[in-house]
């Protein structure tokens, strides 16, 4: 069993599931059922959050790599195998932290079919925790892929005007990416004779096969991440999804892509990762600059933040493929920070959308006059998104770029311009929303944050500062695992442009630059 003496991970999966069923089947009038669903959902997510804290508190740093391990061969071909390492731990924490906030954000804004809505979110939580906790290849796939169903329903039922197009695009895009991964997984399980992820992470696959396997996994995770040019589903999905849907999409679902890179692509296929290093770096460099520029011209707040997500996730991929401790730790921190900050930014959009029912930036202006508390939080998250020192965004981006500089200075150069552009579009957004004269009467009539909204923002703001000022709390659990990963991939290190023996490495850099032009 584990250090707690009870199967905590299974429990964390079961609680939202049971709550979802109860929210759906509870009897009563429509109003009573809706209220019941809200309370049940909030209760279940808070219990999961409490269990998450227990998990974090009892996680032994420096202990065995995989902790809280559970294994039951109940399904025959694959196993109900759960267990987490430090990387999965922090991402699980992110999930359970954001979920109660999502429920809170939907408390008032969702009024139709509340039980179904809450059930979909609770199911989503089960599947997300399952993705991070799964230790079996196919259990991972089932959780990873199963998330499509509730998200499809959330976007399609409670989304905006163009929700149907967005929900289809989301579903089919990600499905097409993932099915190829399934075939690769089948191949791996036959080659290695096991479906156990920790064992597979130590298996050396033949080089020739690695390339194919890498591409199949990449197809899935690149869409999920999302990387340029397969990112186009994200702005559509974000814009149409309800606020909480956007929060969970940006906060956790995108992280599954990054988690996939760190859990599968790098440790399982190190040689292929080296071989195809420039695909990742090239696409990431394009994404950083291109999507930042696109974000700059958006008129829709949610779309702007969606494009900024693509840019931030490109920093993550750059960090992950930097083959260094700084790069990978930085990438993980960017993921965590982006989960908090972009989630919070979507909540900020949601707050004013609930009041004025438009996401058009030009419809607002001067909010710092009549909504000072809101403007303050919005400013904080804007700064965190830009990566101001002291906020969570800075630490991760800085480390990622340090890592990138070690491996390829060109990449670091291009990625840094993205950071500058990030400051441009975020500050420009903030100026148009919060500053200026308060001329529009309906905008002037908007009220400041309510207690419920305040209760959503304060914890995120606290976490943003915590991560910015003392990131060690988050880095410590991951340190050992990232060390293991580095030891695993060291043999395929592409080297850096500072190494004289790897002169040729500069050539593909120019190629990638030419491609960008």
């Amino acid at each position, binding site marked *: 069993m584990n250090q707690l003496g009870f199967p905590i991970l299974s429990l964390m999966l079961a609680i939202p599931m049971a709550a979802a069923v109860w929210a759906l089947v509870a009897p009563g009038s429509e109003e009573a059922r809706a209220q019941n669903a809200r309370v049940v959902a909030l209760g279940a997510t808070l219990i999961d959050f409490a269990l998450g804290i227990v998990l974090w508190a009892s996680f032994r740093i420096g202990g065995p790599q995989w902790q809280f391990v559970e294994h039951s061969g*109940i*399904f*025959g*071909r694959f196993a109900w195998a759960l267990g987490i390492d430090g990387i999965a731990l922090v991402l699980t924490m992110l999930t359970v932290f954001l979920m109660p906030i999502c429920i809170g954000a939907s408390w008032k804004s969702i009024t139709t*079919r509340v039980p*179904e809505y809450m059930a979909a979110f609770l199911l989503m939580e089960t*599947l997300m925790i399952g993705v991070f906790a799964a230790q079996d290849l*196919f259990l991972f*796939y*089932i*959780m990873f*892929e*199963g998330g*499509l*169903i509730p998200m*499809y*329903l959330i976007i*399609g*039922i409670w989304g905006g005007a163009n*929700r*149907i197009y967005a*929900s*289809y695009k989301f*579903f*089919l895009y990600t*499905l*097409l990416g993932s*099915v*190829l991964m*399934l*075939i690769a997984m*089948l*191949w791996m399980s*036959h080659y290695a004779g096991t479906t156990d992820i920790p064992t597979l992470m130590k298996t050396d696959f033949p080089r020739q096969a690695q390339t194919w396997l890498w591409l*199949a996994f990449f197809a899935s995770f690149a869409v999920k991440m999302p990387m340029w040019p397969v990112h186009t589903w994200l702005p559509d999905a974000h814009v149409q999804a309800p606020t909480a849907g956007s929060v969970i999409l940006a906060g956790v679902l995108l992280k599954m892509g990054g988690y996939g890179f760190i859990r599968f692509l790098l440790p399982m296929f190190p040689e292929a990762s080296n071989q195809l290093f420039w695909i990742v770096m090239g696409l990431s460099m394009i994404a950083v600059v291109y999507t930042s520029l696109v974000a700059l011209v958006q008129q829709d707040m949610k779309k702007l933040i969606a494009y900024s997500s693509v840019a931030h996730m490109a920093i993550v991929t750059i960090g992950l493929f930097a083959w260094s401790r700084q790069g990978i730790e930085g990438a993980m921190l960017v993921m965590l920070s982006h989960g908090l900050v972009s989630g919070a930014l979507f909540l900020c959009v949601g707050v004013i959308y609930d009041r004025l029912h438009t996401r058009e930036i030009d419809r607002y202006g001067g909010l710092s006059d009549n909504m000072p508390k809101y403007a303050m939080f919005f400013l904080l998250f804007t700064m965190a998104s830009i990566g101001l020192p002291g906020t969570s965004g800075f630490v991760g981006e800085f480390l990622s770029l340090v890592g990138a500089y070690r491996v390829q200075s060109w990449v670091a150069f291009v990625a840094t311009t993205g950071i500058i552009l990030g400051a441009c579009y975020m500050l420009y957004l903030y100026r148009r929303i919060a500053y200026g004269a308060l001329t529009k009467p309906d905008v002037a009539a908007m009220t400041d944050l309510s207690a419920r909204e305040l209760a959503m923002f304060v914890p995120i703001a606290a976490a943003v500062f915590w991560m910015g000022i003392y990131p060690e709390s988050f880095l410590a659990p991951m340190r050992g695992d990232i060390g293991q990963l580095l030891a695993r991939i060291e043999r395929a290190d592409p080297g850096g442009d500072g190494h004289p023996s790897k002169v040729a490495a500069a050539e593909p850099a120019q190629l990638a630059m030419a491609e960008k032009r």
Partner: protein
Amino acid sequence: MNYYMQLLDTMPELILSLGGIVLMLAAAWMGDKATATISWLAAACLALAAISLGGPTSYGGPAFDGLYLADPFAAFAKLLIFIAAAVSVVIAPRFFDRAGGSRAEYPVLILFSTAGTAMMVSAGDMLTLYVGLELQSLAAYVLASFMRRDGRSAEAGLKYFVLGALASGILLYGISLVYGFSGTTHFGGIAAAMKTGTSGGLLFGLVFVFAGIAFKIAAVPFHMWTPDVYEGAPTPVTAFFASAQKVGAMALLVRVAMQAMGPASHQWQQIVIFVALASTVLGGVAAIGQSNIKRLLAYSSINNVGFALMGLVAATPAGAASVLTYMAIYIAMTLGSFICVLQMRDLDGNPVETIASLSGLSRTRPGLAAALAVFMFSLAGIPPLLGFWAKFVVFDALVAVGMWPLAMIGIATSVIGAFYYLKIVKTMYFDEPQGRFEPSSSALEGGLIALSALFVSPLGYFAIPALGVASLAAAKALF
């Protein structure tokens, strides 16, 4: 082995034939008012036949000089067939009552057709195969046109008959070629002849046999009858065609491919690969434009047959087992979907079949909408529903023999299929309600829907080990 022991091996067929004859007499004397009783008795016959599978019929081996094979493979397929047939029997009286009077022949015809299906999955000889197939088909032609006053039903029966006769002719021609060039109609003999080399004539015969059976499983390019027949036939009959018949024909194909033509697997693999991919693609693309739910389910069945066939391509025990697993899960999904279709009636009680009429079903009939959504996602193969597992085992078998390029293409085509399954979910969940369906008044139908939805739900994963063991044991009987 004495004659009595051999008869024991054929116990399920005996029960069904005798039961069918007795019930036919009962129907003739007692008339249509006894339909309900006869239906339940027919279901009891099917249950008895299923119980008798526990006897020597699942392990007796070849009987009647190898004409009949009592092996686990046949037993597994028969179990599925009997379950599907029983469901098709018990859901029918209510449907026919409301469609202008039920008739007592329906359960009897189902029994005969099931006896034929059971016979053909146990066939060890081309002639048993053909006789079983014809018995099954003859009853099916009548069933398709069972609502003879309804133009669509009559048309379905006629189309099915004409095209079915053509297919039987093709099959028979193939059998005669195979016989001519191998000198035997016995599966073992044909395999022995093919082992020494596949002559042009044998190859021709093989192609014709496969074409004939491909018609029966409704695989592209022999699928043209399916949408018309599925749409026109009464819904319980369509459910029977899509489940029991499909399993029977599929099992037959697997047996012929493995037992009779196993040595020529390189030859028929090319055919099956083409047919499988064509079915998944065409079944997916053609379904997109459909507006009638029964036609859509017909294309969905074509699509699913394509995936099941991919398991056959592997030509290994695991591959054959994957086909059986696929069919087991498939009949739960397809029967569930068709019972949902039975529930689609407007407030006056008239059946409606348009997809548009499902608009906003999640508001008016949340339970039905949820069940149908489960079936649709499952048919699309999205985890954590059990339909994913069906596709999983098939592709697992393919990858195990190194055919991963085919698996890649095959699984990519499943995305096409996902599109139209999503369309149904979209109609039910995202669109505003238009009109209402009458509330459910049948505990039986509701219970069957709930049962199949539960099987297809993640709870069904607990059945995976048992399903895996049983299907593999069944498949090993062929090798």
